[in-house]
């Protein structure tokens, strides 16, 4: 009931946005702030010296590719949904979700690679930070995959089409955001490790 009010009345405002979409953007702001805090902490701590140097696991290059591919497929699904091409929507959604899961598995292997290099969560903060970055990002990614699965299921129930795009749009926004966040973290670590 409340949603109906808010949507209808929200539409009157010239600068208004769908309140739920807007809330998602605000949520993404909070996630940005968490990682901004952590990465600044990384820089501040690094500048104090006593910093363990090591190579980043090569798996990160593959997982970065996978997350980009996943975003591309999701976007294709989104464009198809706008054109009511429901088969392509389902294919795109399925691949994107699958690639999301592959990304998570890949991140797990990055932990394995780190352990092989004798870099552990417990030890010099330089390694601990890496675990925290990837781990916390993976945790957010799990929420993104759950969101993908929910939209995937509703796409099989014919609930996603050009007239009903809000959950799909929010899902796409969030997924692109998480992909972008990973690319930021990866670039950050490449530049500052």
């Amino acid at each position, binding site marked *: 009931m409340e949603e109906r*009010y808010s949507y209808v009345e929200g539409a009157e405002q010239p600068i208004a946005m769908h*309140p739920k979409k807007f809330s998602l953007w*605000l949520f993404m*702001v909070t996630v940005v702030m968490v990682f901004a805090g952590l990465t600044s902490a990384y820089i501040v701590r690094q500048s104090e010296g006593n910093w363990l140097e090591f190579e980043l696991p090569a798996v990160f290059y593959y997982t970065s590719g996978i997350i980009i591919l996943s975003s591309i497929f999701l976007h294709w699904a989104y464009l198809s949904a706008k054109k009511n091409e429901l088969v392509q929507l389902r294919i795109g959604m399925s691949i994107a979700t699958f690639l999301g899961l592959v990304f998570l598995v890949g991140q797990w292997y990055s932990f394995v690679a780190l352990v092989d290099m004798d870099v552990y969560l417990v030890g010099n903060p330089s390694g601990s930070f890496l675990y925290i970055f990837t781990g916390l990002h993976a945790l957010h990614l799990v929420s993104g995959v759950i969101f993908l699965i929910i939209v995937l299921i509703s796409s099989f129930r014919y609930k996603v089409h050009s007239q009903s795009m809000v959950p799909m749009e929010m899902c796409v926004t969030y997924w692109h955001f998480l992909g972008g966040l990973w690319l930021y973290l990866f670039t950050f670590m490449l530049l500052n490790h």
Partner: protein
Amino acid sequence: MATANVASHSAHDHDHDHEHHENFITKYIFTLDHKMIGKQFLVTGIFWALIGGFLSILFRLQLGFPDMDMTFLKPLLGGWIDDGGKLDPNFYLALVTMHGTIMVFFVLTAGLSGTFSNFLIPLQIGARDMASGFMNMLSYWFFFISGVIMFISLFLENGPAGGGWVVYPPLSALEQAIPGSGMGMTLWLIAMTFFIASSLLGGINYVSTVINLRTKGMTFSRLPLTIWAFFLTAVIGILSFPVLFAAALLLVFDRSFGTSFYLSDIYISGEGALPNTGGSPVLYQHLFWFLGHPEVYIVLLPALGITSEVIATNSRKPIFGYKAMIISMLGITILSFVVWAHHMFVSGMNPFLGSIFMFLTLIIAIPSAVKVFNYLTTLWRGNLIFTPGMLFSIGLVSFFISGGLTGIFLGNSAIDIQLHDTYFVVAHFHLVMGSASFFGLMAGVYHWFPKMFGRMMDARLGYIHFWLTFVGVYLVFFPMHYIGIAGFPRRYYSFTTYDFSSMYTDLNMFVSVAAIITFAAQFIFLFNFFYSMYRGRKASANPWRSTTLEWTTPINPGHGNWPGEIPSVYRWPYDYSKPGASEDFIPQTVPLSATPESNLPHEQEMVKLEKEIIAEEDVVLVANESKES
């Protein structure tokens, strides 16, 4: 206007719903109604204020009467009172820590911002409810869970967290450091995680409601200053609480998983060096104060917003400098993020960096002074009506001035070397942040009580409550300045350990007595609050003759706030005593075209525009009605 029609229809649907589906649980417990959620925050906040206040009385007893036999507290505190009737020093630290945590987060963040943002935002901007009622409910229940966990921690064998409300590592990171760094600290961190989630859910909701759900005509330049304050508070919360989360997360890893973010080369209690290496405790301070300083404004801004509204209404004058008020709040919001290191002047920081933060800190005096000036000029030659809410607002202005002045000294990195972590700091922030915000909260409760419960609070009890609290607060905190200038550090268990501070025993006794009286005075409020809820004089629709939208709702608004269409807004919220007008206030819902006698020249211009819009809408309305029939 098709949308307006749909809205009014769904409102009717909703009233219909009420008759059938609303039971005790959906109405009072898992409610989605922003008004009820606001009241839940208020009552929970009052509960925590009593606990927080009571803890402070306990440690004030120790400070004021160091030789006192506290055996009579044994039934309550058990083992924390030793056989000689003395308070356990570790429990003293826990009391101080819990008092700070509870007051800052549970009372003045959740109890103040949670109550009034929830209650007033939809009512004052003309919305049926928050953007997401469900998230709003979640916000309250996360706060509730957080409170339950914190409450449980009070009864642990080793006591609750004891490292001060800022929980600096390494003290808070090592269980063997003090008893309060054990399980109590773990529960503190869990509780704060829930609290952060609650604040973020609330804040996201407030911002998206203010931006998206304003009624027709409610432009940003017509928002009451309360809404501006709540809005900016929520923005600060959204940007700063995640960083506290990051700080707490790393602390959790240091405590429970053996990482060394904040720990390095530590020897403790005769053991060899701990394995932790490479961490930096100052890192925690940076992360913490990046939240910690904005938190001060999260606490203060809503109180300032409430004060603007109450003072304008009860001076029967437009607020002086409406735009200046908004700009100074914006200025405070932005500056609040670039001054955090003034809490760390003595942490070994580069003095050059210190002077930059000192400069930025002192700039905050400008928007703060603008606000004070505007409050005073609004009061100047107004037709003052001294309601209890008005008195508490004026009290806030007084504390804001007297506490703000000492901020200028503390913000100075050289003077801070002497004053850092002394009672001077305690006096400063209890006046400017603690008492000022508390008075804002009280002003809000007295002012909006009729809207919350449909009844008036007793004014005479309100006056007694005000004077006892106002005088009491000054008696408690003013002497602390002297103790602080003399150099006595805060958080110390006893004043009698050193010769130089022994001479303050009498002063401390005086402070403690004043604190007990002030605390006792709060029970007058408590009685007034609950008694008036059921037995108070019935309120009229607009008891303070105020202009804002909430007073256009029924006396006891249902879920959805307005039974019919949501009223449109045609003017700013401060049309009090407008020359030429027949009444001394013109509600925001009165079109300019209805008041030609009091319109200013530029408003006369707007009348034409207004008429065109109204004519257009009539056409649409007629068209819709014919379509429907």
